[in-house]
């Protein structure tokens, strides 16, 4: 039979905080890859009854979170008290997961935490005669050094939604001046400006009424302007999976209190066989989306205009 439930295995299963099954490994790999911006990144994974959250952090100025809600999993058994957290190398985790994703085959895998030695255990469960398995050693997570509590800047939100592809292109173009990028939102005329200053300067403007196909939504009741380090801004789009641009999705940017920038992307985790393109807007069931959020702290001398 397919479930060789020996006593030891049953006991191990009962002891696990989390056993989950997922049927689209590549989607999860894409979602997690979007927060990979350098070679060695330590990630913290938090497991709860709502799903799995992976958090990465850089120099106290940039934090990224990937939310894998429990709806993305075809089975989600959670038995822990509190919210267990563990540390894992992001690169290793993603490379390992991608080994399970065989193009052209449906792959269902089981993820289990913790193993007998606090490992994260992965194994493929869709074939009896071929099995891939992995044990990733986890670490005790470091406490995150800086609090990224995002609060709205005022009573009305300061935010805009832009096509992810256009945002990525704009940020890629700003590489040339380098160093820092000033983002300005102004209500009249409603527009967003990215201005890079360094070796020369470059200004990219999104006018709300001029290109509604690029700038999809815009909320701003007073002008605001903050500067962000280019390398952190770039990290927010540098590894955006191709399905985000293919599905023509939008990314939402919000400026919070103190100029903290929140960038939100939606990454499709639809099963490849079921990934039927419904319409040009790329509408898919919300349950098949992984949410990716970046928080970027402004440069210290950033001033409210």
């Amino acid at each position, binding site marked *: 039979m397919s479930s060789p439930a020996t006593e030891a295995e049953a006991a191990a299963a009962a002891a696990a905080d989390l056993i989950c099954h997922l049927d689209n490994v590549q989607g999860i790999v894409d979602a997690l890859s979007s927060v990979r911006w350098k070679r060695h990144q330590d990630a913290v994974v938090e497991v709860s009854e709502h799903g799995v959250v992976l958090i990465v952090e850089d120099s106290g100025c940039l934090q990224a979170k990937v939310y894998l809600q429990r709806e993305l999993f075809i089975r989600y058994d959670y038995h822990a008290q509190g919210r267990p957290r563990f540390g894992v190398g992001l690169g*290793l985790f993603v490379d390992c997961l991608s080994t399970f*994703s065989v193009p052209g085959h449906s792959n269902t895998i089981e993820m289990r935490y913790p193993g007998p030695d606090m490992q994260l255990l992965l194994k493929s469960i869709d074939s009896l005669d071929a099995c891939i*398995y992995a044990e990733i*050693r986890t670490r005790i997570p470091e406490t995150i050094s800086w609090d990224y509590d995002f609060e709205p800047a005022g009573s009305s939100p300061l935010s805009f939604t832009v096509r992810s592809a256009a945002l990525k292109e704009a940020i890629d173009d700003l590489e040339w001046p380098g160093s820092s990028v000033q983002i300005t939102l102004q209500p009249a005329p409603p527009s967003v400006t990215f201005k890079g200053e360094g070796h020369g300067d470059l200004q990219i403007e999104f006018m709300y009424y001029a290109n509604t196909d690029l700038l999809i939504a815009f909320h701003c009741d007073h002008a605001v302007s903050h500067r962000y380090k280019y390398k952190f801004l770039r990290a927010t789009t540098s590894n955006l999976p191709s399905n985000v641009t293919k599905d023509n999705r939008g990314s939402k940017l919000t400026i919070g209190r103190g100029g903290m920038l929140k960038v939100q992307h939606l990454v499709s985790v639809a099963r490849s066989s079921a990934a039927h393109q419904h319409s040009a807007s790329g509408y898919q069931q919300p349950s098949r989306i992984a949410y990716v959020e970046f928080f970027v702290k402004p440069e210290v001398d950033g001033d409210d205009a």
Partner: protein
Amino acid sequence: MKFKAFLTDNGVALLEKRFLPALDKIDRTCHLYLTRDHAAFLHNLLNGDGLQSVAQFRIEALFDAYRISSQNDDRIAFAVDLSLLHRAIRSSVGICNELAADAGGSASDRLQIKLVKKLPANSTQPMPFLTFETKGYKSAVIQDVPISKPMSRAQVSELQSALDSAHALPRTLVQVHDLNQLQSFVDRMRHVGDVLNVSISKHGDLHLQIATTLITLGAEFRKLPILGERADAPPEDRGLSAQARSERAVSRGDAEAVQVSVKHFAKSLQCHTARPDCAFYGIAEQGACLTVIFQFFIPGTRQTDKSISLYCRLPVLDPGTN
């Protein structure tokens, strides 16, 4: 020392589209070894630390009007750059096809290949070349592929004895059909580590594993068809993890395990480009090497095409040095 032959349509199809691209991925240079009955492309047979590969063809599979003579029992061997050879064949075939279309005939008797010595430009020393000559009614196109000096009698006999020694088969071979799946798995796995543990059991299990201090990643393929010695798996092993199962089989003497380089393993899978119908994996006596034998069927049948043989031998890493 003379070598002259016409490359047949079948020979062109085998070399141009299948074997040369595959062999080129293993290593750019190889030895071409020609005898009265066989032509073989050999990688790393004379130095022990690389991935060895042997692609051997019966003369009829590649050539027509084959003439070879040398003072060393009609054997000739030399080193050649596979990508140059591939380019020369590809463009000769292109020209041939054009000429054949004009003349309305087959291209088979028009692509001649021969060994020549020529004086290259800016040189006073004549150099050996493999020449491809494509003849039309009014014109001929000649392409020269530079080759190494033909190997000495001693080197050729060293090559021949290395070839002979590779003929011993492992006691148990397991058959893998889906090379695509294996290749995509190994390509992804190579990001995780450099050393691959391979274990092959008499129960038909192939177990691949990379283990580092941070991660253990493995794949187990079970109930594969077996060639050679086999044994029934004990029923109590059924519920075990892949790792435990392979450890128990090794300790019972029902399986052998070796360590090889992930890079070599991935390279050996490049032979897949030559479109074999399946592959057999086995561990040579006393764990000397991991042997991969690719099998080709006669098109349209399930019978082995005995005119083609392709196999790789992966050197085993000493566990102490890693």
